[in-house]
C-alpha cells in the first residue's frame, strides 16, 4: 500500500496480526480513538483498531505497545512513504 505524503491529518495504523490485544494502547490514548475489535486475529486475540478519525499523532500508543511492529503512528505532514 502506498501512502500519499504531506497529508494534513495524523493517523495510526495497527497491524492486526501483530497485535496481542493487551489493550494498553486503547487505555492510554488521550483522545480515545482506539478500540478493541470484535474479530479475532490469527493468534486468537481481539486486536486494537483505529476509529478512523481524531488521532493527533502524539505517539503515546506506540510507546505503550510491547510489540515492535504492531503500531505505526503518522504525524501530521508526514512525507510520502511506502508502508507494507
Amino acid at each position: 500500500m502506498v501512502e500519499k505524503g504531506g497529508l494534513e491529518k495524523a493517523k495510526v495504523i495497527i497491524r492486526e496480526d501483530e497485535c496481542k490485544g493487551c489493550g494498553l494502547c486503547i487505555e492510554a490514548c488521550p483522545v480515545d480513538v482506539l478500540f478493541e475489535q470484535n474479530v479475532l486475529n490469527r493468534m486468537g486475540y481481539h486486536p486494537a483498531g483505529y476509529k478512523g478519525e481524531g488521532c493527533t499523532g502524539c505517539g503515546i500508543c506506540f510507546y505503550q505497545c510491547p510489540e515492535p511492529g504492531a503500531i505505526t503512528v503518522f504525524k501530521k505532514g508526514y512525507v510520502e512513504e511506502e508502508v507494507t
Partner: protein
Amino acid sequence: MAKIIRKSDSFYPIYEHKSGAKDVTHYCPGCGHGVLHKLIAEALDDFQIRDRTILMSPVGCSVFAYYYFRVGNIQCSHGRAPAVATGIKRVFPESIVISYQGDGDLAAIGGNNIIQAANRGENITVFFVNNAIYGMTGGQMAPTTLVGQKTTTSPRGRSVANEGYPVAVSEMLATLKAPVYIERVALTDAKNTNKVRHAVRKALQIQIENKGFSLVEVLSACPSGWKMTPVQAKQWITDYMCKQFPLGVFRDTSAEIEPSPAVKNEFISHDLFKKLDIPDKPFRAVKSETPPVNYQNPRLKIAGFGGQGILLLGLGIAQAGMQMGYQVSWIPSYGPEMRGGTANCHVNLSNKRIGSPVVSQPSTLIAMNLPSLEKFECEVIPGGLIIYDSSLINRPPARKDVEVLGIPATKIADDLGNTRIANMVILGAYIARTSIIPRQVVVDTLPVFIKRKNLVPLNVKAVDKGIEYVSQ
C-alpha cells in the same frame, strides 16, 4: 522528531525464533520487556550505534532478545551477563556493550556479578528489568518481590520474617563509588514511559562518551506472573511497586566527567612474552628428537603430597613441551588441604589437538608417594610407564604389563641440599628415559616457571642428576 513513529531498524524484520509467528515477539500480552526493547532499539537507531552494539541477553524471559535485536548478541549464563560484558568491552572498547537482565538474573543468582562490575566501574550499560518475579519459570519469588506479594513460592505473600525485605538494587549500587549513572524508572503511563526513554538514551550516551558504568532499573509489568490483565498490571506498578521502589536518580556524575575516546588495548605478543618473562623468540616449532613410539604424545598423571611440587613438575613438562611446539594442557587437582594433602595434575603433550585435558588413562604415571601409586597404578594403560620415587615408596608397582622406573628422587634432592627439588630430579629422569624433551629446552624453560630466580641453578642441577641417574 521523525514524522513517522514505527518499528526500529535495530529490530530484525523477521524473528527467526523456533515457535510462533515470525513477526511477533514471544512475550506475553502487555509484557514490559517488549516496551523496553522498543526504547532501546529506537536509541540504537537514533545514535547510529547499531553496528557496534553487542547485547548480552540473560536467562529469563528476555533470553531470546537475540532473536529481535539486529546487533551483536551473546546469550550469557544465568546472572553472568556483567562478567561477559566486562570481557567484551575490554577487548572491544569501541563497541557499545549492553547487559540486559531480569531481577532474578541480576539480583539473585548474579547478585555478586553486578556488584563487582559496578564497583569496577566497567564502561557498560545495564538495563535491569525489575518485574518483582521470576517470569520465565512461572512466577516464583524474586529478591525484588514486594512485601506481601503472592507468588508461587510465597503463596501467603512475602513475609519479612521469612523471606526478608525486597532488595533495592539501585540504592545498593549507589553506595559504590564507581558508578556514573543509576536511575530507577517505571513503565507505566505516558509520562513515566517517556522518562524511561530518556534514561535509556542517557545511559547509552554515557557509554558512547566513555564515562563509565550506568544502570537503569526499569519497573516493568509481568501480567502473566502477577495474574493480572495488562492494564491492571500497569496500575499495580503505580500503586504498589513505586511505593516500595521509589523512582528517581540515585547517582549521576555524568556532567562532571569529560567525554573521552575509546582506547583500544592493542595485543602485542612480544610485549606479553616480556611481561611474562618468557624468552622473546618464537617457540621452537620443530621437535628436535623423535621419542620412541611408546613415549609419543604422552598423557601424564603426576601425583604426590601437596608440597612436593607436583603441580610445578607438571607445569614444567607442559611449558617445555609448548616450547617444543607441542599442543599442551595442564590441569591441577588439589586435595582438600593444600599442604600435607594429596595433589595431582594432568598433563598432555601432543602432536595433535588435545580433545580433553583430563587424563583418566595415563600413558605415564609419576607417583611421588605411596598413596598416589596405590590409587593410580591401575589406571595406567598396558605398555605405559610408571616413574616413582623409590626413596619414599617402599614397594615397587605390582603391575607386570607396564614399564617401571624407580628413582630415589627425594634422597638425591636431599643430597643436593633441598628435598623440595625432588620434582626436578624426576623431571630429569622423565626426559632422559623418554627423550620427549631435550635437556636444553628444559633448562631454557626453567626460569619461566620457577618464580625465585636464584633457585634456577639448583633446579638445573637437580634435573641433571635425574638425567644422570637414568643414563647410568
